[in-house]
């Protein structure tokens, strides 16, 4: 498995412990992203740290994390320091409790992650925990330090793996009373069957097509159009992929370009 894991540690049930790795179920990597450019030069704009007192640029190796002890008084913490924080939940997901599936309100579900064994030695232990949760129709409850906070997490067996949800904190979920209390408790009994008929007519199976993004599609189209309008000199300098009309031409371009590059390289050498 050549993917980069977001977190590595251990999954523990009582005296059974296995090495696991975790990766977020969601990612922004496929999203059309823009960079900031300097309008005048067309170059990328990048951020740079400067010393707040001297105004001079700060070298990367001089950047450090500071914990504010007082005004303008910081204790510098290294990553190793932070790893030494005295909580077992930094490295170990110890399942403390099991609750019935569906007993955690959806509103508390914050971010899903996929949890899987990280070493063959733990494959069977992982499977035991997963299959027992499946057989009993329960979710596991534990806690885990993620992003410098200790989070309540729930574990849900799914397919061959486990989905781990971070849960929102109590003070992050707004109490619903202030919103729903004025709403009619009972609907007009004559209307409900009509609504149910409509529901039946419009019933469908869930499909990821329901969450397509037309704006992203429009942006990609806009980018493709602008790419076509680029000056030919620039276009041929780039990858030939910009001309979607025919692959044959693309391959031809690419070959020509490769030949040119070869020739240039020879001259230079």
């Amino acid at each position, binding site marked *: 498995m050549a993917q980069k894991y977001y977190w590595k540690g251990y999954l523990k049930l009582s*005296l059974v412990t296995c090495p696991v790795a975790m990766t977020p179920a969601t990612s*922004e990597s496929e999203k059309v992203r823009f*960079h900031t450019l300097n309008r005048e030069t067309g170059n990328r704009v990048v951020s740079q740290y400067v010393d707040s007192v001297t105004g001079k640029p700060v070298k990367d190796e001089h950047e450090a994390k500071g914990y504010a002890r007082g005004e303008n008084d910081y204790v510098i913490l290294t990553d190793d320091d932070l790893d030494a924080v005295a909580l077992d939940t930094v490295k170990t997901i110890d399942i403390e409790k099991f*609750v019935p599936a569906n007993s955690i309100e959806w509103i508390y579900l914050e971010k899903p992650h996929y949890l899987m064994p990280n070493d063959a030695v733990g494959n069977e232990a992982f499977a035991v925990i997963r299959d027992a949760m499946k057989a009993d129709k329960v979710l596991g409850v534990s806690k885990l330090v993620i992003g410098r906070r200790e989070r309540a997490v729930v574990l849900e067996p*799914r397919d061959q793996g486990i989905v781990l949800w971070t849960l929102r904190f109590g003070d992050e979920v707004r109490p619903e009373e*202030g*919103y729903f209390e004025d709403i009619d408790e009972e609907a007009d009994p004559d209307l409900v069957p009509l609504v149910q008929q409509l529901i039946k007519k419009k019933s469908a199976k869930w499909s990821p097509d329901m*969450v397509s993004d037309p704006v992203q599609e429009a942006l990609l189209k806009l980018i493709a159009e602008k790419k076509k309008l680029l000056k030919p000199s620039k276009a041929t300098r780039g990858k030939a992929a910009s001309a979607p009309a025919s692959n044959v031409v693309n391959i031809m371009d690419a070959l020509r370009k490769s030949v040119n590059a070869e020739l240039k390289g020879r001259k230079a050498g």
Partner: protein
Amino acid sequence: MAAGHRAQWKGFIKFGEVSFGVALYTAASTSDRITFNTINKASGNRVNRVFIDSETEELVAKEQQTKGFEIENGQYIVIDPEEVAATIPESNKTLEIEAFIPCSDVDDVYFDKPYYLTPDKMGGEGFAALRDGMKKSKVAAIARTILFRRMRTVLIRPHGRGLIATTMNYDYEVRSSKKAFEEMPRIKVEGEMLDLAKHIIGTKKGTFDPAAFEDRYEAALAELVKAKLEGRSLPKPKKVAVSKPNDLLAALRQSAGLLKAAADKPKRTAANANAGAGRQRATRGSASNAGAAKSASHRKAS
């Protein structure tokens, strides 16, 4: 309807020929992790962030900045914010229900953020009928509209007297669990191992209230900073012993035995379920009182 709260969005719900006014309110906020200040180690001063041209290294003022899409290494297509805005369809302020799907069919991995959905003054009747119809048919609704300058899909489901609308992540933002787990070995556990694990689970069954959970990280970090300031050596993380495949059955048997012994003692198992939280609260002292009080009021809500 929701007096005293500011709506994030106001518009209409439409299904079939029925339409009525509704509003969306933020149901959950995200609180930040502990942020550190970035310090210049050489001087001990804080640092500020400035924006410079990557080639000329000169400062670039805000009004001089524009957006670009990188088509290949170092080559950009300039796209003005107005051009981006033009790709967003005009909003008709209507959450149009495109389909109803069985609640059991919902893939929660797509969930983004929840909003409370309430009727406006005139919409109460249609709202209550939609809510109760969905409840009885055990379905959630998929609706789309322009929200926060983007076409968003929301999943709407009944919740108490109201509805909750959850924005959904886009298809390209979610990896399917099938894909993520496809390379894992297919192991099916049966027999004594499964029975023992189920037995262990049985001794740890309970209920869980997320609202009552408390984060111990800040206190642990303060402790670490104190230790560092006093020149104490920081504790080394404990080595975790991994169960070897050959020992797995023994570990399960031993766990089941231990837990059984604990359960046979005077009735303490039910209390154990929340024992962890209780202990934390005691050691954290008054600092956590405000938090505890807050979560208590939330507990009533859920």
